[in-house]
């Protein structure tokens, strides 16, 4: 430290931070406690006696307790509040002061702190107090000691589980037991005995482990919410391994209950089981410790009887009633039992002050007892949901006051405090380290101070260094309430202790405050009111820019505006002294030139409109920044742009994650699409739109979440980009009237940034794919045009005649125009009939959707706007012809590409089709040629060695023969199948096969669709004819064989036999007619 300059000065010992800030009031050293206690003057009473109390201060409450004691009146005070609101602190203070007033103290005081936060600790405190030693029986004391021992046993968990089992088993009335469980009580009994289940319940974080911790060991972290232990529904959501083990080894009842509870819709049942087991806690703890609520009640009653006889009263100060869990019912009963009334006159008067959490008071505190509470105080704010401390809500004075006391205690050593404590510990006498400090004047003027007490006529003012009131309040207000509540404990722990403990030592090294992206902790770092001022800070602050920003957003007014206060220059409302103290350069900042220089009166107005703290107790430096908005002042203030996007940008530039990244990416994508003249780069809007559609292709370094696309453009974290994003936010904020100067600045910034990024962005759009082996990557038009060429070829839309590039392009475009999902599918079906299987297989690999997309995208990427008319387009034939000419020169060789997942749809379709074609096309040409050759050979085999005319004639003749002999008819050829056409077909097929060169072959085969169809028709016809002839011949062979058999087996008569017969007959007749004697 420089001995002359107030710089790098650490006026506290680091180890004192944790000594002083002990969050458990009962554990704090008495001197520290008294030195740090901030008087509470605004207690909220939910109930209090009709007798008037002067005010709502803690002093009045103390006097009320003393008066009750004096006037022999009962006092049953309940201090309710969420954890951290200061219940313990108030009770501890009441107890300390109550005991200090020896004049009124005619009784015994029992103070049960929450330090160990477990029943065992509570019992030990009772035993250690010795208060019961003479009052109650030896047997009761032994019970208490036994209970303490029982709670310390290692087997406590198993004991508790066993007691749960016993209670459930013998709980005949089963009050609170869910109906579905009443029917299956046996299952629960077995469940609690099962070894696997018990292990699960006992595992770290499990309900039994939590209970054991609460009863026996205690833990600030585990029970810091001051809640009583209980079962939770999630305790019965078992993992797969456990369920499997139960299924394999468990009893049927255990298995059934475990399975029943595991169904996803059984959350209600799990909750009911948890609630039921929680309701058994008292019984279980009672059985475990052999100490019941009745035992506790009996002990206290004995004590009160004893004290009554001595004419003494009993004062109970209990920080948290939940530390009596298990026997708390007995304690509550004791508290509610007054010393008045017929049956209670044997008891002494009792003053009790009990700390109770909201949960306990609402759910566990008996309703009939609530009526007996004489003073019911809440430390919660009544406005919200009970998640804030009433003491500090909207009260920066209280924040500063509380912090100042702790800062003073930390600056003092323990001996100094003890000395003060031992001499009545009057606040007015409290030592003030600032009084002994050389830099007091400078320090207090710059950082401010708070009055913590009055000493004679002089106020005791404690400096806020290294904070100022704005820093304390900003940090407190920015505590992240998603994880912790905003309470005094949070102020001490998350602000004062954290900042001094984690960063305090950096003061000496000149590194305090830490840079904006290095705070950590549990409060959110605010952003600059005007994010673009970040540039100014970076420009002027150099290496210290981020620390300066930290200083400005916490200590200052969150601007970098330079103003004048008298003859002093302020930066962000802070004087140079603060910068010097933290070894930071007092940069120039920004001056609002549009307005006259700020006068002292104006600066004064700032102070008036934003007083530090209204109370006289806190004195802010004259330059103190306001914690209320500056807009009410006459000081020219920048437009506030602290919307969530601005905050996100600020956080990002500080090194945090960029949230709302999709919003920024979408806006940036729009900017990129519209600002760059893409046609200059040979790209159509379609191509660009597809890449920069939505937000997926843009990734910001350090954004929250991973990129959703594999293909994306990364923008590195930079202040320039942050400015661009801010500009986009501002330009899109239509609710805000345009600030022409700001807009102008934004436009310049955007233009400059885009100019710098244009080549990179264009390269990104152009080269979505990476070529293999260092080959150049095809452009999108190239991909789509070649896709179109091959699609047209496969579809059969190309012809070899006049195969110039012009003709080819025309044919491609014509074909693409006709390609849609339906037509492509039809072409696939047709190809399956006509082409080689490889040809149709390749077509099938190209999904109709992709074919349609490629076909429709081709003209779109080749489209160019005609002149300035955006509605009229023409095809960029030059580009297309260049691509085709080059491709033809390369003899239709497709260079390999590597396709990427999650690239833009247009690229994805184009590259997928291209990749498919590239892999298969050369092979399918060869196979298609084989297919044609095979068909030709087959056809020729039907004909040769004859001529087509002879074949057709022979078939016709045979057909006549069949007809003549009644053998039916041969298949009729289709009309177009004639001998002469067959001759031409054979010739043309041979011509295709004779073609050389991949292009000629591809075009010939593409155009050969009809020819192949005709060829296949001929083949089919001849095959049918052959089949029919063979069929007839087969039948004829059988007939022939039968006839031959028949004719061979018979001795056939001949015509000669017939002639002979005739001769014989005629001979007989001739003989009969020969001349003879006729008649008589």
């Amino acid at each position: 430290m420089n001995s002359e300059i107030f710089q790098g000065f650490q006026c506290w010992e680091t180890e004192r931070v944790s000594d002083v800030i002990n969050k458990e009031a009962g554990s704090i050293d008495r001197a520290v406690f008294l030195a740090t206690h901030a008087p509470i003057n605004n207690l909220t009473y939910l109930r209090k006696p009709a007798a008037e109390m002067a005010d709502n201060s803690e002093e009045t409450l103390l006097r009320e307790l003393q008066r009750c004691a004096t006037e022999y009146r009962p006092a049953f005070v309940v201090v309710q509040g969420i954890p951290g609101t200061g219940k313990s602190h108030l009770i501890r203070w009441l107890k300390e002061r109550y005991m200090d007033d020896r004049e009124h103290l005619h009784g015994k005081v029992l103070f049960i702190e929450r330090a160990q936060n477990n029943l065992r600790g509570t019992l030990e405190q009772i035993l250690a107090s010795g208060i019961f030693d003479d009052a109650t029986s030896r047997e009761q004391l032994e019970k208490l000691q036994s209970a303490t021992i029982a709670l310390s046993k290692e087997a406590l968990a198993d004991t508790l589980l066993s007691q749960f089992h016993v209670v459930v088993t013998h709980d005949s009335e089963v009050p609170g037991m869910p109906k579905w469980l009443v029917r299956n009580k046996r299952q629960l009994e077995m469940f609690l005995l099962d070894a696997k289940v018990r292990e699960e319940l006992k595992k770290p974080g499990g309900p039994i482990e939590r209970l054991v911790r609460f009863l026996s060991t205690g833990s600030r972290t585990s029970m810091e919410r001051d809640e009583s232990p209980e079962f939770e529904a999630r305790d019965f959501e078992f993992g797969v391994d456990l369920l499997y083990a139960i299924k394999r080894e468990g009893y049927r009842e255990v298995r059934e209950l475990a399975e029943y509870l595991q169904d996803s819709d059984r959350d209600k049942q799990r909750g009911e089981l948890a609630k039921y087991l929680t309701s058994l806690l008292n019984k279980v703890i009672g059985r475990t410790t052999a100490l019941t609520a009745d035992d506790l009640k009996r002990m206290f009653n004995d004590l009160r009887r004893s004290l009554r006889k001595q004419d003494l009263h009993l004062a109970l100060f209990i920080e948290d009633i939940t530390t009596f869990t298990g026997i708390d019912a007995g304690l509550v009963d004791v508290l509610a039992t007054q010393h008045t009334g017929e049956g209670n006159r044997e008891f002494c008067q009792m003053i009790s002050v009990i700390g109770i959490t909201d949960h306990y008071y609402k759910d566990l505190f008996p309703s009939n007892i609530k009526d007996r509470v004489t003073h019911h105080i809440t430390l919660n704010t009544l406005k919200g949901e009970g998640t804030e401390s009433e003491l500090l809500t909207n009260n920066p004075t209280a924040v500063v006051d509380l912090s100042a006391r702790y800062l003073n205690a930390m600056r003092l050593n323990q001996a100094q405090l003890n000395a003060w404590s031992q001499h009545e510990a009057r606040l007015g006498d409290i030592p003030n380290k600032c009084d002994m400090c050389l830099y007091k004047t400078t320090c207090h003027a710059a950082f401010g101070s708070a009055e913590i007490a009055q000493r004679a006529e002089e106020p005791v003012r404690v400096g806020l260094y290294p904070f100022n009131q704005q820093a304390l309040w900003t940090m407190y207000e920015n505590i992240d309430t998603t994880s912790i509540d905003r309470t005094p404990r949070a102020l001490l722990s998350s602000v004062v202790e954290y900042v001094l403990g984690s960063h305090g030592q950096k003061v000496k090294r000149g590194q305090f405050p830490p840079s904006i992206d290095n705070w950590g902790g549990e409060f959110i770092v605010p952003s600059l009111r005007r994010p673009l001022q970040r540039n100014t800070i970076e420009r002027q602050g150099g290496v210290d820019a981020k620390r300066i920003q930290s200083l400005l957003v916490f200590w200052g007014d969150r601007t970098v505006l330079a103003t004048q206060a008298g003859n002093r220059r302020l930066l962000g409302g802070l004087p140079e002294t603060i910068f010097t103290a933290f070894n930071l350069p007092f940069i120039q900042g920004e001056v609002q030139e549009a307005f006259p220089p700020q006068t002292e009166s104006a600066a004064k107005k700032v102070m008036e409109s934003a007083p530090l703290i209204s109370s006289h107790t806190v004195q802010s430096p004259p330059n103190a920044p306001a914690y209320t908005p500056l807009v009410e002042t006459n000081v020219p203030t920048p437009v506030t742009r602290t919307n969530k996007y601005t905050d996100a940008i600020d956080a990002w530039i500080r090194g945090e994650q960029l949230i709302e990244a999709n919003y920024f990416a979408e806006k940036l994508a729009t900017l990129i699409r519209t600002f760059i003249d893409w046609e200059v780069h040979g790209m159509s809007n379609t191509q660009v739109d597809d890449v920069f559609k939505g937000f997926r292709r843009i990734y910001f370094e350090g954004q929250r979440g991973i990129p959703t696309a594999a293909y994306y453009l990364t923008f590195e974290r930079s202040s320039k980009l942050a400015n661009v994003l801010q500009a986009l936010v501002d330009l899109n904020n239509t609710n805000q009237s345009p600030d022409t100067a700001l807009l102008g600045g934004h436009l310049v910034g955007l233009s400059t940034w885009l100019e710098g990024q244009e080549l990179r962005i264009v390269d990104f759009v152009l080269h979505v794919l990476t070529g293999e082996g260092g080959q150049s990557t095809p452009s999108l038009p190239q991909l789509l045009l070649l896709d179109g060429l091959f699609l047209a070829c496969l579809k059969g839309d190309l012809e070899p005649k006049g195969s110039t590039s012009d003709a080819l392009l025309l044919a491609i475009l014509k074909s693409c125009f006709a390609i849609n999902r339906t037509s492509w599918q039809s072409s696939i079906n047709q190809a399956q009939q006509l082409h080689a299987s490889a040809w149709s297989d390749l077509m099938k690999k190209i999904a109709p959707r992709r074919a349609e997309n490629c076909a429709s995208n081709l003209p779109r990427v080749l489209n160019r706007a005609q002149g300035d008319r955006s509605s009229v387009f023409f095809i960029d034939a030059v580009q297309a012809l260049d691509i085709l000419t080059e491709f033809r020169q390369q003899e239709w060789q497709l260079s390999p590409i590597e396709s990427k997942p999650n690239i833009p749809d247009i690229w994805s379709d184009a590259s997928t089709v291209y990749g498919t074609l590239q892999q298969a096309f050369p092979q399918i040409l060869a196979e298609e040629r084989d297919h044609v050759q095979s068909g030709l050979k087959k056809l020729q085999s039907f004909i040769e060695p004859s001529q087509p005319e002879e074949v057709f004639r022979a078939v016709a003749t045979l057909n006549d023969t069949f007809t003549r002999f009644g053998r039916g008819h041969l298949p009729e050829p289709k009309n177009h199948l004639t001998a002469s056409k067959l001759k031409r077909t054979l010739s043309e097929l041979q011509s295709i096969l004779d073609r050389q060169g991949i292009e000629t072959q591809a075009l010939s085969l593409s155009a050969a669709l009809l020819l192949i169809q005709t060829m296949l028709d001929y083949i089919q016809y001849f095959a049918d004819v052959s089949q029919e002839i063979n069929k007839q011949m087969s039948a004829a062979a059988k007939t022939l064989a039968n006839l031959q058999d028949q004719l061979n087996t018979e001795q056939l008569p001949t015509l000669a036999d017939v002639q002979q017969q005739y001769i014989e007959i005629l001979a007989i007749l001739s003989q009969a007619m020969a001349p003879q004697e006729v008649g008589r």
Partner: protein
Amino acid sequence: MIITLVQAADKQQQDIEQLRIAKDEAKVISEMLSTLEDVEKSTRRLTSLYALACASLQNEDVQGFAASISKLVGDITISRANLLSEHRQVPQLNAILKKMKTLSTDIENAWQKYAIEQVAPSLDLLRLVQQLPEVRSQEQELHALHIQLQHFIAQTPLNAGSLSDFESALQELKQRLTHLEGLNSEVRTFLFKVQNGTATLSDMTEEVYQWCRQIQHASAFQVRFA
């Protein structure tokens, strides 16, 4: 390939057709032979009957039969001549067969008429005298002759032997009846009328009376007068 296949198929069809024709021809010839066999049988019967007719019937009848046979010969000759061009002559032969059967029936009818004419007087006389005591003694012989003659009337004798038998039986019957005593014409008339129930007393002449008184002829029959 197609041409070869067509040729093979065509040849196969031709072969089938040839075999089918051969089969049909065989069937026709077989049918012809069967029919001719029937014709031959009928011819043989006809010629037998014609020979009987020639031997027993009147000349004019025989000439008629001869003319019919000549016509049949002509028909058969024509059929035979047509055989070369039309192997199947079954219908023609059936027509010839029908004519033959008609002619045979005609000859048989002529024979029956002739035979009945020859046999009837003797059989009438036999019926008149069959109750006479002197006839009764040769009753069996006469009956056998009667049966034999009836058979030849029903069954035309188709050869010379049968015809001779017929004539012999007729001759024997006649002889036996001729040898009966006193059986003159008056007695025969009277017996005829008695047999018909038309005899009256006027028919009872002396000669008839004496014949009746002779060898107790009157007890052999009763005379009833109308």
